[in-house]
């Protein structure tokens, strides 16, 4: 067992213990926000696997999220499957969708891929809205059950569900962290920096691209499943094209190609409008401007700025990008 993997066997239980303490310490409203933060962090991390790590500009994280949420909810409501099965099915169906987009990414790239992914987002939303026999149309699905008890733990309360979310988030982080150290992770960076050079080094662009997008889809799908079972009610309006734009914004504002960056972005974009009520009305106007400012002046995001200011980073790619911006 590698050293990196061993480390996670310490971090995971510690994180879970801490989240249990935190869940008891805060009020229900804060807990609700924390759960949303952890779920959107997963989506942002998923978006980052495709966008930040592999350089594929996809704007369809919201669609993967929706596919996960609806798969999970439909299986739970129609068959009455337990939560674990739903989560697995959601992850699988979203990764299947990811495979489709990944296949498309091997055929078109750049602007074309971005627009294709947007078309995919819009189509998914339209299907959710119109396929009423399966998705119940605009009213959405409700009464999605919270996960029942598992061994000795009871997941039906909000505070235990928070622990599940943190567990899922930490697993995601561990997976991304471990993958980044493998050949595949190096392949992500290679196709991001220069596809032609990567190809000349014998990296299968096809395999790397599809893997990146499948992983991205799987993570978003799992987050979608958790979201559906947490909210108990999902409707197509939760999964519009702007949801996909949101996750891209989280990555750009937080800082692409890092672990902390997307999480920071997700937390900022979820909490700021809640705590600054005056800002709530103007938030999209402000976030839109932020995208332009960050892309033009600070392409490495808030976390990139923090890393450059405090601490010696060995990330030359980050320095190069910041210097270029």
């Amino acid at each position: 067992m590698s050293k990196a993997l061993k480390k996670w066997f310490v971090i995971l239980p510690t994180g879970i213990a801490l989240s249990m303490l935190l869940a008891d310490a805060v009020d229900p409203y804060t807990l609700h926000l924390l759960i949303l933060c952890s779920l959107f962090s997963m989506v942002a991390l998923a978006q980052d696997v495709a966008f930040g790590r592999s350089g594929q500009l996809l704007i369809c994280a919201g669609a993967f999220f929706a596919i996960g949420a609806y798969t999970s909810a439909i299986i739970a409501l129609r068959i009455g499957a337990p939560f674990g099965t739903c989560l697995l099915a959601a992850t699988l169906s979203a990764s299947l969708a990811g495979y489709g987009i990944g296949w498309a990414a091997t055929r078109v790239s750049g602007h074309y891929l971005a627009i294709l992914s947007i078309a995919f987002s819009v189509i998914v939303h339209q299907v959710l809205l119109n396929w009423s026999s399966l998705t119940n149309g605009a009213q959405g699905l409700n009464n999605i059950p919270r996960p029942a008890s598992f061994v000795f733990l009871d997941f039906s309360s909000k505070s235990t569900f928070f622990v599940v979310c943190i567990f899922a988030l930490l697993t995601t982080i561990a997976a991304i962290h471990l993958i980044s150290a493998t050949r595949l992770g190096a392949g992500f960076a290679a196709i991001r920096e220069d596809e032609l050079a990567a190809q000349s080094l014998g990296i299968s662009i096809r395999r790397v691209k599809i893997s990146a997008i499948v992983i991205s889809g799987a993570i978003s799908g799992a987050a979608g499943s958790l979201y559906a079972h947490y909210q108990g009610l999902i409707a197509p309006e939760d999964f519009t094209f702007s949801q996909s734009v949101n996750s891209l914004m989280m990555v750009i504002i937080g800082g692409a190609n890092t672990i902390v960056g997307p999480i920071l972005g997700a937390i900022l974009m979820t909490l700021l409008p809640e705590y600054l009520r005056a800002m709530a009305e103007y938030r999209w106007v402000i976030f839109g401007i932020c995208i332009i400012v960050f892309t033009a002046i600070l392409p490495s995001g808030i976390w990139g700025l923090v890393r450059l200011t405090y601490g010696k980073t060995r990330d030359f790619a980050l320095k190069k990008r910041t210097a270029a911006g």
Partner: protein
Amino acid sequence: MNGVVIGSGYALVAIGLTLVYGVLRVVNFSHGEVYMFGAYALVILMSDYHMGYLLAIVLVIMAGACAGPLIELVAVRPVEKQPRLKTLITTLGLSVTLSNLAILIFGASPRFVQAEVTERVLTVADFSIPVHRLIVVCVSSLLVCAVWGFVKYSLPGKAMRAVAENPGVTQLLGINPRAVVRETFALSTALAAASGALLSPLFVVNPFIGTLTGLKAFAVVILGGFGNVQGAILAGILLGVAESVATGMLGSSYQDTVTFSILALALLVRPRGLISEVQAENV
């Protein structure tokens, strides 16, 4: 008939997009928002200031021409040294800002154009033709011809095509590529605003129409081939007709599904457009 009317509106929006892409290799995502503001401007000029339809359209087109260089300054210039794909992100940000600004300014409730011109009907023999639809088709074909002639024969138009071909050599010939880019943006957004003004009496006007129309314009641009003006005209009308046929057959709720399925298919099967003559770099 309805499809042709809407399609000629799409073609106008799409020509603007395709011109900008041709000259700068940049996808302007906030293009649809110009359409939306054009539609609002017309509603306000006609309903609140009781202006004539044609006069209002001319004013909207002039305002639209001013919007282009502003978009270029805000969203394109700051990232001109970075990879072209960054412009897609910045203009997407601008699009989010503009559509939400419209919600703040105009409110989310839809508005309508209430004017005599939208109700007048011309009866020739046994056919009754709504005058407004006739105006839409006439004005948009006039604009399309004017733009086509401008790009093909006038000196600034030739400069645009030269920059599209090779910006470096154009600069050597004493043409300022920046000025050409500014002009292209002005022309492009003038067309989008014109389209918004022309079509607004046909639809409800709300802050969300911009994004959807912008995306449909992308479908048209891709069908026609990026940077290909004739292709955009043809594909615009084709998409308008396809949409109304699909609405007739499947009901209006599937209209957008059809549009975006066409877009996705076109990208995968014929990414160079229906008429492939422009060599695409991203394929």
